[in-house]
């Protein structure tokens, strides 16, 4: 569900950007939307040229794209089916209704102007699902669910940062130049943090502030730091197999301390790209470990 939301938000961003003119005609952000969604290779295998209609279809409905909104919902529903009994009726209903509705939507397909409605619908459904989770028992199942959620989110945020990291390299000037403004707004909007950022920081928008917001700021529910802390929290809340939890935690400890103590200036100087790459690698190894320890 988390990934469905990210994909929907990315689509929304691409849609928005395609409506603004630039000196040579129109903006074409679809390529960067595809790479941010990690779907560029898959797309290119299927289509020769990058066209809005195809991108929309590929990211929303395509069955061959593992990250399409359709597939995310399908998988979420199938997983929920397996653990149906640990869900409350509300949360099952939220996920299953979403699934039934997307089947209908897929049959009807869509015309271009429907995209905003589709993305809005997706985000609404995800919010409904998240809201329903507050009725769950706070047992290990709950902790595993949120471990998955935050691992997914950490990975999504980090990948988006990686695709757009060049936008955040320090530049002296304010946001006045339209290109930067647009690039920044793509990044923030796709992480649903556009308005939130304005609230979190006074004054002018600078690259360093945005990087700080998305990497280190614990008030931002999309930041890498926030995700890590929640992963640690739900991991250490697990009551089963303390020795397995301990092993996984040891692997995470360094990253957790580092992200707590690091200054954004140091990270940018050392290389945001390297930092994010390492982060992604670490998260994925934690993910694998959890699978190996608990679900094999």
């Amino acid at each position, binding site marked *: 569900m988390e990934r469905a939301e990210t994909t929907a938000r990315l689509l929304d961003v691409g849609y928005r950007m*395609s409506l603004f003119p630039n000196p040579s005609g*129109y903006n074409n952000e679809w390529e960067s939307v595809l790479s941010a969604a990690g779907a560029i290779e898959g797309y290119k295998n299927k289509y020769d040229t990058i066209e809005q209609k195809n991108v929309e279809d590929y990211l929303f409905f395509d069955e061959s794209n593992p990250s399409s909104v359709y597939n995310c919902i399908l998988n979420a529903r199938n997983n929920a089916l397996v653990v149906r009994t640990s869900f409350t009726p509300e949360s099952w209903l939220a996920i299953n209704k979403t699934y039934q509705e997307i089947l209908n939507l897929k049959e009807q397909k869509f015309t271009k*102007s429907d995209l905003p409605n589709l993305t809005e619908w997706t985000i609404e459904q995800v919010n409904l699902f998240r809201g329903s989770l507050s009725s769950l028992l706070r047992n290990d199942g709950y902790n595993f669910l949120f471990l998955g959620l935050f691992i997914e989110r950490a990975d999504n945020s980090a990948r988006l940062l990686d695709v757009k990291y060049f936008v955040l390299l320090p530049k002296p000037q304010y946001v006045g130049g339209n290109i930067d403004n647009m690039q920044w707004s793509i990044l923030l909007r796709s992480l649903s943090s556009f*308005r939130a950022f*304005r609230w979190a920081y006074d004054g*002018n928008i600078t690259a360093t502030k945005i990087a700080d917001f998305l990497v280190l700021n614990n008030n931002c529910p999309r930041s890498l730091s926030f995700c890590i802390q929640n992963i640690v929290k739900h991991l250490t809340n697990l009551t089963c197999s303390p020795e397995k939890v301990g092993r996984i935690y040891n692997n995470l400890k360094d990253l957790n301390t580092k992200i707590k103590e690091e200054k954004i200036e140091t990270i940018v100087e050392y290389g945001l790209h390297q930092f994010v790459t390492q982060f992604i690698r670490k998260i994925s190894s934690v993910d694998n470990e959890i699978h190996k320890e608990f679900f094999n």
Partner: protein
Amino acid sequence: MYQSESVIRNHYNNINDWLDQMTSKVILEKNAEAETHFRNIGITFSTNNETARERIIPFDLIPRIFTYTEWLRLERGVIQRAKALNAFLADIYNQGEIIKANIIPKEIIYKKKSFEPSMFGFSPPRDIYSPIIGIDLVRTGPNDYFVLEDNCRTPSGVSYMLENREIMMRMFPDLFHNNRVTPIDDYPTRLLQTLMSLAPIKCENPEPVCVLLTPGPLNSAYYEHSFLSDQMGIEMVESTDLFVEGKYLYMKTVDGPKRVDVVYRRIDDDFLDPLCFNPQSVIGIPGIMDVYRTGGVNICSAPGAGIADDKAIYIYVPEMIKFYLGEQPILDNVETWNCEKEQELKYVLDNINELVVKEVDGSGGYGMLIGPKSSKSSIDEFKTKLSTNPNGYIAQPLLDLSFSPTLIKNQVEGRRVDLRPFCLIGEQAQLSSGGLTRVAMNEGSFVVNSSQGGGVKDTWVLAE
């Protein structure tokens, strides 16, 4: 949209094709969609009648379009005017050169209620009194734009400009693919930069703290206040949230007092400071004027800025442009008779059947007489008013405002429109790439005010 009877102006061709394709069913659906969207986000205005449902302004689906070159001229003209108005304010609250030069008689200025004596001898940061100016423009012929009114206090309507665009982009993306429309969504960022560039002299914070001061949820523009502060990421406060201590202004927060550097106020002068303006007022921040005058805070727009948009001062704006900037006005005024002058009053009384008479202090389309459309009794009533209180009125010819195609019951019909673009002046002067187009929805009507059944349209400026 039309050059003459049946020739469509070039830049409207795309729109015309688009209209041809739409069935009346689609139009109805889209109208309903827009209405639902406006209700959901809450862009409504409250009416005095408390039991009535909140109203939304009628939104017309057909955009109004300006070409790049058309806009360039408007942009230069509006910025020129906005600069002159600020120079005028700086002058009359200091040396008064324009009075010494016998261009504007001093009685007109110093006797006005909107003139603020306590501002005398004080200069706000960068000498900017009115950083956000809305200029109301009308078009009467292919390239004939006239200024109908200046709004130097707290012009509203910019939230409609932004939301109208959002809904159009959402409902009709194809239109934006076929027409290169200049984006306007960076307006809040530019507004914030403008406010920050007007920090008071005693502000040491490299990133000045700005707040938006609202009269509260009962105000008809409350949606706009919350919308703008949210978009800028600044606090929206009421006067009870602010207090003065020592030589500074603070806002109350859960974390204790926080110093405020710039107040973007959306309340009238009278309600700013009970110690200074209206002692009867229960709202206001006691002592804020003192902090303001000693450079502890900036108030945008400055108290007393309203004198610049007084309808009696309006007549002199072209002279101001020549006097302060040494330039020829790019945009002309509408011909106006000043009833304070005996000769002009006589002309107005003799020709009242063809004229529009307006109260100097009136707004919102109230308190005006449209000669050609009025009954004999209301004309007589106005004649009496004019004779007893000539100072309170000006008169203008009834302008043949341009028509813009508008959907009325699924048919495209011409309706009269005006335009309010928004000019920002801080470190730099800039104009929004668009504005608020208001449209008189009733057939034959000349009044575009929302309180009188006016609607709004999205306004496009095509990219070069």
